[in-house]
Each structure stands twice: as C-alpha cells, then as structure tokens.
C-alpha cells in the first residue's frame, strides 16, 4: 500500500495503548511522540542520530526516534520514558537514577534510562562495562556518566 506524501493514518501501540496517529510519511517517530501524542519526555537534542536523547524502545529494542519514521512503526510497540513506571511505582532504573544522582540537568536522562531498561531485559545483572556499552550512544553534557554507570549496575541488582 502506497502512503503519502500527504498525511496518512498510522496505528501504533504506545506504552501499551493502541493509538492511531495522522501524519505525513516524512514525520519522525520523535516528532510524533512529542507533538502529536504530547509525550515530551523523549527529548530532541540533535535530530540527526548523534546524541541519543530521543532513545525509545521499538518492539523492545532501543532506537533513535529522530531517525525513525513513524510510518515505519506501523503495528509496532513503542515504549517511552512515560510508560515504564507501573502502578505508580517508579521503574527500578528510575529509582536507581535518583539514588545514584545519575543526572544533573536531566535532559539526556530519559534516553539514558531507556537504554538501560533495554539492556536489563537482555541482561538482568549487567557489569559496569555492560552498562557503558549500553549507554555509549547516549551523550551527557553535564558529565553524569560515573553515576549513570552506578545506577545501571544497581538497577540490575535490585530487580
């Protein structure tokens, strides 16, 4: 089925809920999340796949939503920072970030957390090195990295 170039309906599952968004094929997943679905926790920093702030999970895998077309996510499951706390309880990674002081300005934080959430699903007890590899694609300009690594390791331990 050929879609576009005008706006078209795209059916997604976002944080467990089925939604249909209306937008042109050129619209990125990032803009769709932020502007169409008002999920502004996912940040736009570079908009060209060079910083990691827009990291979300698509079918459980971490991707840069700024380089992903929303239309290409038809039928897929998207998870964002807004969706990982369950029943009013913070996700263990969120809790670990607070406990380890793993953020300063906080702008990269949602992306960092999503990368570690993805890691923990593959590897429940990551080492420091595992965490480093998982967030090597998430820049932090404040330099919270040492605490991010601590948070990732301790989130694994507390699960």
């Amino acid at each position, binding site marked *: 089925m050929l879609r576009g170039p005008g706006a078209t309906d795209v059916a997604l599952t976002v944080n467990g809920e089925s939604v249909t968004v209306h937008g042109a094929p050129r619209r990125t997943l990032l803009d769709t999340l932020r502007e169409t679905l008002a999920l502004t926790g996912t940040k736009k920093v570079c908009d060209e796949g060079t910083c990691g702030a827009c990291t979300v999970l698509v079918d459980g895998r971490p991707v840069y939503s700024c380089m992903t077309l929303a239309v290409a996510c038809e039928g897929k499951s998207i998870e964002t*920072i807004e969706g990982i706390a369950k029943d009013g309880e913070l996700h263990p990674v969120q809790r670990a970030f607070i406990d380890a*002081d793993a953020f300063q300005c*906080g702008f990269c934080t949602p992306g960092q957390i999503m990368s570690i959430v993805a890691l923990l699903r593959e590897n429940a007890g990551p080492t420091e090195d595992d965490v480093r590899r998982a967030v090597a694609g998430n*820049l932090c300009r404040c330099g919270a990295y040492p605490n991010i690594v601590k948070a990732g390791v301790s989130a694994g331990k507390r699960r």
Partner: protein
Amino acid sequence: MPRVVKSREEFEGEIFESLVLVEGKDLPLPAAGTEFSEIGRSRRRVDGVQRVTGRARYTQDVYLPGMLYVRVLRSPYPRARVRRIDTKKAEKLPGVRGVLHRFNAPKAAFRGEETIFREEVRFVGDEVAAVAADDEQTAVEALRLIEVDYELLPHVVDLEEAIGDMAPRLDTDGNVAEAATHKRGDAKRALKEADFVVDATYRTSTQVHNSLETHGAVAAWDGEQLTVYESTQHTFGVRQGLRTALKLPFSKIRVLCDYMGGGFGSKGGAGKYSIIASLFSMQLGRPVRCVLTREEENIAAGNRSATLQQFRIGGKAGRITAIEHTSWANVGQGRWVANPTGPTNTLYDIANLSSKSYKVVTNAGSLAAFRAPGYVEGTFALESAVDELAEKMGVDPLTLRRKHAGSPKDPMSGKKYSDKHLLECYRIGAAEIGWQRRRSGGIRGSAPHRRRGIGMATQIWGGGGGPPAYATVHVNPDGTVVLTAGTQDIGTGTRTVLAQICADELGVDLDAMQVRIGDTDHPYGPISAGSVTTASMGPAVRIAARDAKEQLLGAAAGVLETPKAELRLEGGAIVSKGARTPLGEILSKVENNTVIGRGARHPNDPDLSQRTFGAHFAEVEVDVHTGEITVEHIVAVHDIGRIVNPTTARSQVEGGVLQALGFALSEERFLDRATGRVMNANLENYKVPTVKDVPAKITVKFVDRPDRKANNLGIKGLGEPPIIPTAAAIANAVANATGARVRHAPLTRARVLEALAVAGARS
C-alpha cells in the same frame, strides 16, 4: 526596612562594585559544633522524580494552543552587506504567518545595537530574517523561498590570520584591542637574571558549549502581558533584555524557566531568538516558539574563544622569579574578552609579572561565557609553563608550586583572602594520586608501548557570591513550606541545596519543602553563573527561614501559651520541655494563615578577597605509537568552604572534570577559512566525551571547612572550579609519561604524535 549598601563582588574573574538593597540584619555563622539536620548531608535531589519520569517541563516541551513556529534565516557568508530581501514567495506559502527582517522589523535594541537584523552580517549564522509559520516544516520551507541580495565583503575567521597585517580590518581600530594588563615588579629584568627560562607558545581551540537543550524561547503575548518561557541561567537577565528591546515595563514581562537542559555559561540573558519570538507574538497575537537547532546552537549560540598565549617564565634558586604572559583571544563578533591572564595574575605569589590580554575580532560566532571563561584557557597555558620550568630546573613541579601557593594575600590586589587552604589541597591530592610514584621520564605502562605518567595543576576562581539575592519562605497552616526565589536550577542541584538550607534553619523535614524558582514574579535572584548561586542564595534563604521560624515560634507561643524563649522548632514540630507538637497542629488552630519569612543576601567584607582554590592530579597512559591518551585516574581536591550536599557536590566535580576532558582531548570547532563555515556544527564531529571516555577512577575530595569570613553559612561556589585545572594536569601527565610536551589543547592524535616525534628526536 530596606537600605542601600555598597557591595564588592568578584564575578568570573573580575571585580564588580555596586549599590545593592538589603534588609534586616545578617546572621552570624552557625556556632562551631552545631549539629545540622540537613546541611552537610547527602540528599537525593528534590526534583529527581520529575527528571526521571520525563515530567520535568523544559522550554523545549512548552507547546501552547495556537502556537507558531519560528525558523531563522542565517547568513551563509562570513561577511556581507544585506542589500535587498525579497520575501514575496515565502509569504505566499500556505501556513506562513509572518516574516521579519531588517527592512520591516521594529527597532529592538540588543547588546548595544539598534536592531537584531544587521545591515552588515558578520559571521556565517548571523540573523538575516525570521519566519513564523503554523508548523516547523513550513517555516523551514519558507526560508528556502526568501531571496537575499548580498554584497560580499572581505573576511577573516582565523585568530592568527586576524592578528596579521594582511587581514581585512573589521573594526576601525583594527582587529586587535588591548583588553587587560597587569604589571608588578620588573619581569624583564628578572627574566634576564633568571638561571632558567622557558619561552613557549600555547594554543587552545574553540570549545562549543553544546548544552543538550538548545537556546530557545516560547513567547506568549495576551494583549496585556508578555510571558516568555526560556531556557536560561538568568530569568531576570532575560527580562532586562526584553525590556530594553521591546520597551515594555517590567510589570508586563514575566520570564519562566522551570527546568533547563544545560547552559554552562551561554544562557546568560535574552537572545535574538527571545526577541524574535516576542516580536512575532506581539504582532500576531499568538504564542510563538523559537528554539534553535543543533546546527544553530553550534554556529550562533556562543563558544569558548580560541587563544594564542605566549609565556616567558623564569626560575632561580628553586623558585619562580618572573612571568611574562601575552594572550590573544578570538572573540568572533563578541564585545568582550574572557581574560586568560586571570590565573597568571592571581594564582601564585610571584614578584615580577607582566601580563597582557588582547581581544581579537573575527568573522566568526561570538564568544559566550563558558564555565570558567578565560581561566580554563589561561590555566592550561600557565600550569603547562610552570611544569616546563620545573622540568628545566630539575625540581619537582609540586614542590615548586608549594613555594608560591601558600600566601594568604591576593598578589594582585594585596587584599587578604577570606580563607585559603590550597596547600592542604596539594597534600590531599598528592596522597590520593600517589605522587611519590612519579618519576621524571614517566613509568612503565600496562604494555611495552604504553608509558604512564602523573601530572597536576592548580585552580583559583571566585565563587564567593554576594548580593543582591532574595528569598521568601511561606509556611502553610499544615506546616508545609514553600521557598520562593528568583534563581534557577541549571542542573547543579540548586533546588535541593536551597531546600536543605531552608529545612535545616527552619527545623522542618525536607519532605515538607517545596522550592519554587525560575520566575521573575519571584524575589530577585542572580544569574546562575560564576559559581555564585549557592553562595549568593544560600545565606538569603537562611535568613528568610530564620525570619519565618521566629514568627512561627511567636505564633506557637500564643497558641501554647508558653514563653517563646522556651520553644524550639525541630523536625517540623514545636518542642517545649520535651513535649512535641507538630507545626501543622499549632498553625491549624489559627485559621487560614500564611507565615512569611523574608531574607536578603548581605554584602561581603570589602577588605577581603573571597576565592576558591583547588588542585587536580592526573594519571595517564599514553600509547607512544598511536598517540592515544587514556586518562586512568583524576584526583580533584577543592577548597570551597562548607559543603552543603556532598552527593551533588561530588557530581558537580565529576561533571566539571569530564567537560574538561573534552576540552583537553577531543573538543574543537573547525572553521573553514575560505568560506567561514563551521564544518562540525553537530555532535558527530564536535566530539564531546562519551561514557567510555570517563577515566577509570575519579577521586573527589573537599577540604570542607567553612569559610568563616565569607558569609553566614561559610559556603562558596563549585560550578566552575572543577573544569579549570584538568586539561593542564593531563598535559603535564602526558609530558611526564613520554617527554612529549603538547602545547595545544585539545591533545589530539596529530598533536600528540607530532610531539612524540619531537621528543623522540630529542632523546
């Protein structure tokens, strides 16, 4: 009663004297041995949940109903005259609501110029026109439809070319202007009489802030009031800038900054984007958003100047006898210079000294303050030169520094320091790094081709803070507390440390506290820069909390019918002869009340110099065949008075070290000289450190003694100190490891390999 007093404050390397309004009386320092409930204790950030859930709202996250999107057309040329602009095609594009440029924009004064759109554009990225449209994509497309007739003019972008005789003159007085000079003793003669002289030229490249949240504003004019959401380090500075540009009274401007994604000095006031968004909003009656792209952030939102620094440093009989330091800084189109000679003038007690600092204008983007502006660049040169001299003299570089670092007086002004424990920093740092393992010529690394070395460097900075800064403490009938202040949290933990200071003084639990900041409808707060926030705001908060506490005790005395003198406020309860009554219970007996405490920061002692000191030690390994540097260990020791929150303080130091690591090893803006374009205006080729660049170990230590003469808490700032000495410590460690002296930061492969070749040829 408010009264006017004189204040003298050091800010980012310069002294400012001003009249300020204060009220009430300052408090004495807490008595020695005071048992604090919050101050000095590690606490989680009070806004942590907001930040980890994505609920923290940053300027970029402000989407208002009916909001328009602005994109800015920027000059593709480094220097040109804008002769004509044709916007007809752009205006016809469906969804375009307005276009502004120099022929139709209202006058709006900005940084000494009458308009935000110049006739002569002076760097690639200079604002030429702006489009407001229903969505961003339409605005982008409209930019392509604007036709501009440029008359190209000769340009120069490179620092050393701009200094030379062949360069076009950008200012009537030429490109080079003297910005600062200092002289004491007779450096020339002392150099002649010295036994050892190092004559060396150092360079530092342009560093770009690259805050993750770009500069931006959302402006909403409702016919009566202009509300501007802005990612800023100074809401009141933005308000001032908008007042100047738009000629609105303060009462009609409200600037808000709830959360902001980094600034590092570059977000000190209104930008052209704030004014453009406001002008459009006032013209079109709709909210308007102007948020820069990553590329714009790199070309038009400020940078740390590239510098060229010449040093002559002489030694005799185991001491430094003279320094001559001349610096040139590429400020682009900036109007000031971040002076690299600051540390040279003040760090060491050296009898004969002569320094000069020149501002060099070029057709490049303006400098903006960048975390310890000038001091980072200057300390790289100074502390490299001191090590080079020590090497030549055959003395231990730390021993040499100790001889000049102990003076209790500022060698430039002659004033006594309020406090100084630099030698203590040296002692702690040397022990932590294992300085005794350091050998001239380095030690063996983890493989035959790897050499290991140890180096160190010192930092001096301000951070004493001062007035004006105000805070208000509201206590609700249920005993909860709202601290209101006009400061902002740029990621340093301001909300948290102010909550701690307030809760501690007031005698309530941290959980009872809410901190509301980032709003010009609050009492004035200073710019979050110059490492002044905690030292300026903290003492005011303490006074406000004390004021509220006195009132609460008075109220409790009435309710409990007990003399006030017999009451204490502790853990959110009024304590009287062992009986505890929760504050809420007492206040609820008096219906619907608010107890308001007020506090103002009082001036510093004008006869003293309030400074922070510290030393960083670095251990590195260098792959002598590939030039790869691996920083194994950084020890950071700082003397910044009393520590309010050891956890956030430690984070701040680690962050400073890592931003310095970028400056030292990988961060560098590249300008094409022929076209004036920035080739790496992105995060692909402008290389900020990744998690993998982090040294295996970072040890953070504080002297942690209250500066008893600084302010009523004995606290000083920490934002900038940890970025200052790291690069020099690393360069000194590399030289120690390999004998290769790299005099240009960042120490890239090319530079390290070249220095290794020179060192190899020498040995």
